[in-house]
């Protein structure tokens, strides 16, 4: 196990190093000079040079790469070109929107998907199953930004139950904050719930076909009892893996939804920073997201390997 851990750790570090080079390279070749973006059309050449020096843009790219990396290693993400505030502070602020939103959406999707998946599995092939499966097909096919537009039209503009967007802030109370995240969370949750429900159903059906389920039935448990006592619990492993994947997807993938609901989240930060050529912000946020996903994968692999030694030989 130790050898396996070390080996995986090494490949984790290599991955991160490769990722950082790729991110830096892709972002730095983007056309557009942050300084001239900030100073606009009437800026004079000497003014631009002064600002470039102030931003630390006057050194070579290699030098900038190492400045960026060595800063990150000690937790210094640099200072935003446009906002002139520490990037780490900006990320932390935005996480207070993006993280709760992702969790909220995940909770909603789990709350919808579990009962739907279990119900469909229990009624395999019957009208109930077909209805649920049809609904999930539809859920997967609906683009979430389109769904978001419809939600705003119905619930914010016509019924006025919710604000059309914006984030009220946690300072005004937990429920106020949650209320303003509700429509975006629903828009994000629906397609995820559809996928999750299908995974739940097929995973349950696999388990139901296993020997120990037949044994359970043979012991005199009803189909329903067997399903709840043994089936659901055993079917959870693949489902949890999907939930983990979805969480990291939601964290970064809410970019369009944040745009529709003008939420000050991580995704919108990246979007704004790309158009303002605030390169350091883009680099740091993307690197952070990649780091999160790679680390989660690493931990999941370790956990699996700890449970099931056979997996250690698999790379």
């Amino acid at each position: 196990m130790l050898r396996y851990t070390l080996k995986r750790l090494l490949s984790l570090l290599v991955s991160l190093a490769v990722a950082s080079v790729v991110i830096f390279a892709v972002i730095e070749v983007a056309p557009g000079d942050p300084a001239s973006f900030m100073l606009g059309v009437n800026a004079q050449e000497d003014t631009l040079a002064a600002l470039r020096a102030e931003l630390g843009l006057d050194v070579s790219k290699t030098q900038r790469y190492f400045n960026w990396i060595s800063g990150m290693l000690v937790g210094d993400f640099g200072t935003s070109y446009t906002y002139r505030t520490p990037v780490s502070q900006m990320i932390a602020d935005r996480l207070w929107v993006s993280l709760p939103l992702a969790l909220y959406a995940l909770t909603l999707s789990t709350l919808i998907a579990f009962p739907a998946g279990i119900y469909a599995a229990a009624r395999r092939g019957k009208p109930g199953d077909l209805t649920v499966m049809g609904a999930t097909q539809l859920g997967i096919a609906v683009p979430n930004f389109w769904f978001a537009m419809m939600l705003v039209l119905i619930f914010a503009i016509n019924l006025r139950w919710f604000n059309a967007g914006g984030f009220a802030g946690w300072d005004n109370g937990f429920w106020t904050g949650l209320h303003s995240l509700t429509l975006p969370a629903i828009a994000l949750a629906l397609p995820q719930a559809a996928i999750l429900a299908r995974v739940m159903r097929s995973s349950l059906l696999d388990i139901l076909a296993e020997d120990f389920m037949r044994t359970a039935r043979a012991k005199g448990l009803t189909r329903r009892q067997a399903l709840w006592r043994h089936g659901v619990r055993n079917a959870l492993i693949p489902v949890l893996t999907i939930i983990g994947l979805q969480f990291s997807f939601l964290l970064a993938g809410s970019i369009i939804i944040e745009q529709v609901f003008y939420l000050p989240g991580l995704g919108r930060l990246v979007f704004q920073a790309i158009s303002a050529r605030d390169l350091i912000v883009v680099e740091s946020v993307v690197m952070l997201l990649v780091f999160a996903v790679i680390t989660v994968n690493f931990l999941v692999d370790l956990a699996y390997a700890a449970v099931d030694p056979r997996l250690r030989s698999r790379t």
Partner: protein
Amino acid sequence: MTLYSVRTCASALALGATLLASQALAKSDITIAMQLEPPHLDPTSAAAQAIDSVVYTNIFEGLTRFMGDGSVVPGLAEGWEISDDGTVYTFTLRDGVTFHDGSTMDAEDVKFSLDRATAEDSANAQKALFAGIESVEVVDPLTVKITLSEPNGNFLFNLAWGDAVIVAPESIDDIKTNPVGTGAYTFGDWVQGDSITLNRNPNYWGEQPALETATFKFISDPTAAFSAMMAEDVDVFDNFPAPENLPQFEADPRFQVLVGSTEGETILSTNNKQAPFDDIRVRQALAHAIDRQAIIDGAMFGYGTPIGTHFAPHNPAYVDLTENSAYDPEKAKAMLAEAGFADGFETTLHLPPPSYARRGGEIIAAQLAEVGIKAEIINVEWAQWLESVFKGKEFGLTIVSHTEPMDIGIYARPEYYFQYDSTDFQALMDTLNSTTDPDERTRLMGEAQRLIADDYVNGYLFQLAKLGVAKAGVQGLWENAPTAAIDLSAISWSE
């Protein structure tokens, strides 16, 4: 009863009275939405108009200032004297003006601010405004003498810009995140990506404004703007980004729509040095191929005034030259044939993000196709536009609204991105700059407008409208936008 408790009772009563009074009065706070968030809050070191919208006259004031009708009036300067040769301006400052940190605003601060703007390492985005300043002298704490290298008829106008506001050396280091000015409002809080709050300045030198607090909320997405307004999340939308939604606000008694003008001449900028646009016949053909009214109807849903030259129609010196480039596709085809392009040609059309450009561009591309010009649409972000179009001059056509006030002078700069190089025009501008007689200035400005229209430098489309939406009870909003500003001290709630 001790004296102490009497006083507490009295002040409690007074407090109760003010509370009652303020309840009886109208609302004293307002939420104003704008499309772009300022990158930081220093108007003297960035071009972003969003900075001026928040801070101009609210937090920072200059020696002179713009009013809503575009006139320039005294600001921190009470008055001024101009020497007979027009090169020395002596400003008398208002007495008793303090910065928000309590320090006094005096002649030293004025000198500091102007020296900072003209310095070698100045980060001022409009450094050219101050180019003629030779020296700034402190005569006494309330008198400043500014000497120009040559007379400049625009000098008082230039000093009214947000880029010329007075800042203090004590607070300059943190100006970007904690601006300290002399205005009627102090900086409160900034939730980045969301909003900025300003509070009324109790020590303001002028009249106390009606609003106690104002929140600027940043909503970039046009759909979100519509929903936020409809859901009454915000009280005012400074410049509403989606003209197609205005009829709905007009039909709704909860709202008022304010249609005014901006300083934005929206033009089809043409690369005058790139073939085939270096041929005036091709540029003239281009001008006749464009149906302005269709663009205004299609892209702006009818809002906007057609222009035939680079000048704001609301300016008294404006000359209507739209007939000079009237829509006439047959004539356009004939002119193209004359120039040797009977079968048309291919070019690029770079479109920055605003909807006037993106939508207008689609319409123009279709109109140009009618006369045989195939314009490939390239959508760009502003950063890219600055790099490749503005600096690199790698473009055929682009659409952009030139929002600086009175900016016809850009045609005198041959290196400016559309690269119009006319010695006649440059000479005309030199004469204009050194002329102070108002009638003569008007005549010269008319001549300048005709010159660029006759040379078909660019395709002149329309003057961008300022489309404000507000709740019915809000009054005192600027209808026009002589500069980017939201003057809070003029705003109040009715009743």
